């Protein structure tokens, strides 16, 4: 019986029989992100660490998106109470994210998303009489302004209230959906790369071309991270000033030209090309839409990571010899107990002239870029009383965003407040756009929003500590360590809130300024690319071992991509000599540097060519 239900609803439905034989509670837990037909709704996994799940969001830039629908199978007819897990994302005082739910054509409860509370919680949608065991559930967006739904619960225990804290909800969800009981076997790999941004993708490609069986796990449907069409940040940092002839070749393959930041045409960022390059590698298996949220360890080694599909919630376990944390947030390192830092160090601690006087939690912010296009006809944009408010006195007179559109700056935690940050960016974008359309029709009457990112382009979060921590002095004095491995060229580029923006939106800044501190090309030591206390963990990308100040220069994507390439080479040597990342530094540095300098013959015994189609 249970097997049949499971088959019917693809894991969405489960019954819990209470221990008391006289009464059985029956719960039907529908994850919104698992709807069969998502219509115009999108899956958002950015708050996974906070709510333990992805959710579905109506990102229509002010125009209602198409309905999402799915078929719900009930274990029996009769009365069920309906609970809907949602929030009012902009309760100022009431948000615009309004939607309704309909089962078999009948509306469930009232309008959701306008409660005035931005806490994720269960809302009682009343009791329904289920007459058919199979019914169509439809989610109808009313505004196009980012209404969102995590899950819908039907329960025949009419007095049951579903749990709402992260731990209890996770336990409840896992129980009713069986998510964690038997993860699928993702396989064993020489190198498991977590994070499919530029750094992770370059790491995975390089390792696989060197003959390593490699997994690339990415929590979005596209590769490229901040350089994907979901975020649209252009690649920065030079590869032509590289000290190492071997490095930058894969970065160049990833490079789709320079469309600038926030180009309205998604294809400029080459998502399909990036995926095609990866899929052409025979030693490389890519797992998209998979969010890694758990690791398994033996002593100081990671043995496996477990990822959950952001749509189906299917769990998969990947075992490996080496792991590379290219998540940006340092998620793998964090879960494994790797030493890490977040925020600014003090001058006293690092001796850096650009460091803060006192250590604090300040980080660079997150951008949600956007662009508009000129159309033939005049259009309007809805009023946005729930958004930030602008006037002739202060507004941002732009038809397309650039890097300055940025929220964070210590006002919000870039990991645990990721949703708030994105939402704040949206309130700035929509509020400003609404003002421009009405207040400056001579310029904006015929312009329409073409694209607004709902995935945040995050700059800074955790930095995993390695055997070396790169500092401002390393950079400015141009220190060449024997393991100097990646050439970096970007200025020390530490953003701060724009002064005028601060004046008008103190504590709620969304617009940045910077001072570029110019640097001569310098090298990042290999020791910044592996964890100092997790013995088989590499890092590449923004979460490598640097101070906050040095990170201001290493963080750009071409540089991050070259870090990935180095990780690929180091993992290859690790496997060859059956040693740890640190072992590569201690015993095989000459060979690593030789490879980077292109002065040793290619490795033998590995068939690379077959992988390059």
């Amino acid at each position, binding site marked *: 019986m249970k097997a049949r239900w499971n088959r019917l609803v693809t894991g969405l439905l489960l019954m819990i029989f209470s221990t008391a034989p006289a009464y059985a509670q029956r719960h039907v837990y529908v994850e919104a992100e698992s709807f069969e037909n998502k219509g115009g709704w999108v899956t958002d996994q950015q708050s996974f660490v906070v709510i333990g799940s992805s959710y579905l969001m109506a990102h229509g830039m002010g125009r209602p998106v198409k309905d999402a629908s799915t078929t719900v199978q009930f274990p029996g007819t009769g009365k069920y109470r309906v609970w809907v897990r949602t929030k009012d994302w902009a*309760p*100022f*005082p*009431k948000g615009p994210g309004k939607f309704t739910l309909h089962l078999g054509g009948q509306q469930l409860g009232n309008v959701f998303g306008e409660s005035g509370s931005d806490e994720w919680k269960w809302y009682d949608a009343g009791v329904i009489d289920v007459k058919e065991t199979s019914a169509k559930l439809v989610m109808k967006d009313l505004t196009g302004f980012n209404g969102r739904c995590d899950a819908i619960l039907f329960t025949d225990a009419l007095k049951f209230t579903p749990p709402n804290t992260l731990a209890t909800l996770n336990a409840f969800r896992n129980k009713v959906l069986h998510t964690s009981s038997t993860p699928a076997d993702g396989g064993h790999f020489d190198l498991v790369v977590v994070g499919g941004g530029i750094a992770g993708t370059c790491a995975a490609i390089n390792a696989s071309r060197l003959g390593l069986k490699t997994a690339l796990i990415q929590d979005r449907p596209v590769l490229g991270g901040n350089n994907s069409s979901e975020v649209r940040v252009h690649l920065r940092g030079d590869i032509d000033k590289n000290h190492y002839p071997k490095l930058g070749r894969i970065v160049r393959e990833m490079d789709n030209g320079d469309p600038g930041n926030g180009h309205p045409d998604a294809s400029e960022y080459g998502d399909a090309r990036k995926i095609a390059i990866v899929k052409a590698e025979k030693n490389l298996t890519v797992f998209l839409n998979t969010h890694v949220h758990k690791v398994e360890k033996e002593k100081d080694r990671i043995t496996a990571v477990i990822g959950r599909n952001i749509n189906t919630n299917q769990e998969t376990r990947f075992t490996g010899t080496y792991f590379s944390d290219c998540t940006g947030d340092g998620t793998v390192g964090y879960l494994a107990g790797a030493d890490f830092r977040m925020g600014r160090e003090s001058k006293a601690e690092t001796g850096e002239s650009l460091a803060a006087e006192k250590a604090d939690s300040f980080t660079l912010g997150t951008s949600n870029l956007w662009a508009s296009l000129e159309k033939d006809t005049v259009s309007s944009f809805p009023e946005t*009383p729930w958004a930030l408010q602008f*006037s*002739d006195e202060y507004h941002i007179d732009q038809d397309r965003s*650039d890097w300055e559109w940025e929220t964070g700056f210590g006002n919000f935690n870039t990991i645990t407040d990721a949703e708030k940050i994105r939402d704040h960016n949206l309130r700035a974008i929509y509020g400003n756009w609404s003002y421009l359309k009405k207040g400056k029709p001579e310029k904006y009457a015929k312009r329409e929003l073409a694209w607004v990112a709902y995935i945040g382009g995050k700059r800074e979060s955790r930095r995993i500590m390695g055997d070396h921590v790169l500092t401002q002095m390393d950079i400015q004095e141009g220190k060449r360590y024997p393991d100097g491995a990646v050439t970096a060229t970007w200025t020390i580029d530490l953003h701060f809130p724009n002064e*005028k923006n601060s004046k008008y939106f103190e504590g709620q800044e969304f617009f940045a300024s910077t001072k*570029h501190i110019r640097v001569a090309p310098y090298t990042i030591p290999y020791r910044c690319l592996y964890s100092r206390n997790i013995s088989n963990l590499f890092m590449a990308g923004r979460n490598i071992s640097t101070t906050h100040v040095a990170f201001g220069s290493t963080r750009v994507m071409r540089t991050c991509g070259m870090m990935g390439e180095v990780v690929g080479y180091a993992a290859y040597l690790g496997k060859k000599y059956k040693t740890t990342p640190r072992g590569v530094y201690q015993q095989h540095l000459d060979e690593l540097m030789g490879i980077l300098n292109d002065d040793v013959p290619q490795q033998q015994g590995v068939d690379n060519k077959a992988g390059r189609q």
Partner: protein
Amino acid sequence: MRLIWLMIWMLPVMAAAAVPGEQIRTFEIKDSSGSTYTLKLALDNSGRPQYFFRNIFTPVCNTGECKPVYINFYWDLLGNYTRFDMPAGEVLTKTDHREFKEEEYRKLQEIISRETSIFSELKMEDLVVKGTEKISDSADVKTGATLKTIKNEVIEGAVYTCYTLWHLAHGSVVEEMRKITETYTSTALLHQFLQSNNHHYQYWAMEKVMNAEGRVQKGFENDIAGIISGSNIFTARFALQKAAPEYFTPARQSWLWEVYTNAAYPLQMAILKKMAGLRLGEAVMLKIAAVVTEGNRQQFNAKMALLADAGPKVQQRLAAQLVEAEPSLAADMYTALQKMNSTDKTVRQKMMQYEQKTKQTDN
């Protein structure tokens, strides 16, 4: 096409010139180099100042070659640049001697209009490759702007023109205009400024009619009220925050609550914060109590705090909502009423009803 464009630019001037009785006062200003230029002030037929303008003739020099530029600039009375137009028969040209296109005139207006610009941060030698009009590849290193942004903020082939004109619009002339306008300060001008839609005028005048403690000069109360209830949220917030408590008489408190009802959320929050520092009269408290549950939780909390010392009438109004209000709000209202130790019969009765209702629900 160009002719039409110039005609469009000329229209306001022609219109202005057509106003009968309009007067122009001229000022000879010495600049830092010691040379003199003429600044003009347009006055209406009653002699009230309207705006400043200059008929500019300036050399724009580059690569050893200078060319004359004729252009008219207009500013408001506080030296905020508003627009330019071209004298009849004059055009702007680029280094290759090609004339500005229509969109380049439009772009120039945008460039000069910017209060802050890369021109304020960068010297010409940092901006362009020496002796050329080409934007230097390292220009972005000296500023926060990217090269792309910098290119967006100049007109290619006319970087020197943009640079020169921006500095003419935003340079020392601004201070001269402000000095002149000071001499025209009068009650009438202050009213005019406060009632205008120009936030520069409003801030300037507010500084004059409100002292450091926020006491509003007699006769300007309504002007300040107009700003608080006006459409510019920033001037509204400024006036609200600056005005001293005594400005908010009981009558004005009630008026402020009307403003609250129609205000954007951030101003609503600013009003609640302001009210926390006032001795509220019963009339406004009754209004607040009537809508205490409207809005979000933060607003509910702020409103309840405003009503903490409320008398029996207000208590009654709160108590009347106990049974119907959303449970968590009702619970907070009940607690607040308990703290008020009300002896009012109706209030006690409503509280008991609420107690009974919650008891039933608990069962």
